[in-house]
């Protein structure tokens, strides 16, 4: 069992973006997204500007476009919702390729695709350049209540415990002649889930008690906090992205 500080989306590299303290990256990412969402949907040029900004950060962070686009597929359900909107929307209709589509629906669909995609790309960039541990350190420095960071710390660690215990259970079964293709082909998916839950809890509880035995008091020791909190300079560097985005958004609002 390990605390897997490098989650699946983390891209090991050294880049200026990787080196930026996590609290700066989180704040920049959140503010950027807010600016995007606040932009009127008809200011098409603004979204082009945001896309350029994302591309610039991705290049700085050495994250390739292929990786970003394949991971952005998580958004797919909402893209489908967006595609359905022109058919469902009310009001004025236009004829496109023989289909009567709602203008409001078309714009709504565009709105969701554009803002959704930009938001997903921004969070993927954060994920690609920040370990989960740094993420928690960042939340901690942004004054997130300790109970929340503590739950988050344990959550990330228990994901590994769950995976580890599931693996052990599978090895135990197959070596004694069972032949399940998936976890849920066990005598009922749910029964397996209940047992896995209990096992993972008891393992995790013992680990937690062992941590207490080594002086853990609800917060990871300060050395874990990496290079120390962000300096004013780093905040300034990090602020460029949301500032540019805010500029674009303000112009767009003023123009429409």
């Amino acid at each position, binding site marked *: 069992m390990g605390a897997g500080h490098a989650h699946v989306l983390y891209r090991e590299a050294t880049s200026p973006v990787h080196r930026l303290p996590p609290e700066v990256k*989180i704040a920049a990412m959140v503010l950027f*997204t807010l600016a*995007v*969402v606040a932009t009127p949907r008809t200011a098409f040029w603004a979204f082009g500007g945001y896309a350029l900004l994302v591309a610039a950060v991705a290049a700085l962070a050495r994250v390739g476009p292929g990786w970003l686009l394949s991971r952005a597929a*998580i958004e797919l*359900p*909402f893209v*489908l*919702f967006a595609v*359905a*909107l022109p058919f*469902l*929307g*009310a009001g004025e209709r236009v004829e496109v390729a023989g289909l009567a589509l709602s203008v*409001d*629906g078309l714009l*709504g669909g565009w709105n*969701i*695709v*554009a*803002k*959704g995609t930009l*938001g*997903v*790309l*921004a*969070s993927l960039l*954060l*994920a690609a350049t920040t370990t989960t541990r740094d*993420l928690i350190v960042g939340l901690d420095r942004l004054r997130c209540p300790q*109970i*929340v960071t*503590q*739950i*988050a710390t*344990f*959550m*990330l*660690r*228990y*994901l590994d*415990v769950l995976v580890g215990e599931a693996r052990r259970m599978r090895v135990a079964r197959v070596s004694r002649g069972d032949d399940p293709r998936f976890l849920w082909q066990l005598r*009922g*998916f*749910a*029964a397996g889930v*209940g*047992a896995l*839950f*209990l096992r*993972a*809890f*008891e393992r*995790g*509880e*013992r*680990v*937690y008690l062992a941590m*207490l035995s080594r002086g853990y008091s*609800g917060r990871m020791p300060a050395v874990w906090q990496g290079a120390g909190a962000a300096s004013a300079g780093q905040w300034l560097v990090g602020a460029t992205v949301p500032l540019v985005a805010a500029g674009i958004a303000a112009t767009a609002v003023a123009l429409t």
Partner: protein
Amino acid sequence: METLAMHISNGIVNGPVAAVFAAFALAVLTLCVLRGRRDLDDRLAPMAGLVAAFIFAVQMLNFPIFTAGVSGHLLGGALAALLVGPWVGALCVAVVLVVQALVFGDGGVAMLGLNVTNMAVLGTAAAYLLIALLLRVLPRTPAGLAVTAFVSALVSVVVASQGFVLQYWLGGTTDLGGNLAGLAGTMAGVHLLIGIGEGLITATTVVTVAKVRPDLVYALRALRPAAPAPVVPVAGGAR
């Protein structure tokens, strides 16, 4: 048939409505932090982490319903409420949503207030109210607990889905006109099915835990003081 997932992504609901719900969610979560601190002892801390991890893991399993690409996933509010209580439970679900929004892009960051309101606040609250009611009226048997878990999970999922309908009605970026009722119906129908799956998983998980470690089920400790938890504060460390 459109595709729906519970994580609202950026741009579906307009900014002002999102902001109002963000303020609402923040206020409720602050209350949860204050109340949750009292609950979170050596037994609940690892349990809260596991509940969050478990919800995180099952939310990753998006599963298709019907044939037409409608997908949904489990929400976990009832499981959290049963195992760690309403306050810490809501925090657990909220933590899952925050981490998913920050690093997986699952659910827009700007829509976090909406998602937290639906899944962490409405879902958990509805579940806990039902749990409190059902545990008092149903017999104190594993079957009673299973029914409680099943029903509260089912209802909480449907309630959470109607939260989305409400928000869309208030601030949907596209006017669906008469289709809003259709949206409400589809959401309820789809989430009834998801709720059945969620109910089954919640019930078996909670019953399994209650059978072996009744001291770990918050709802049984808090709502059935007649069966006192063992005197030991920290349970079962030894192996």
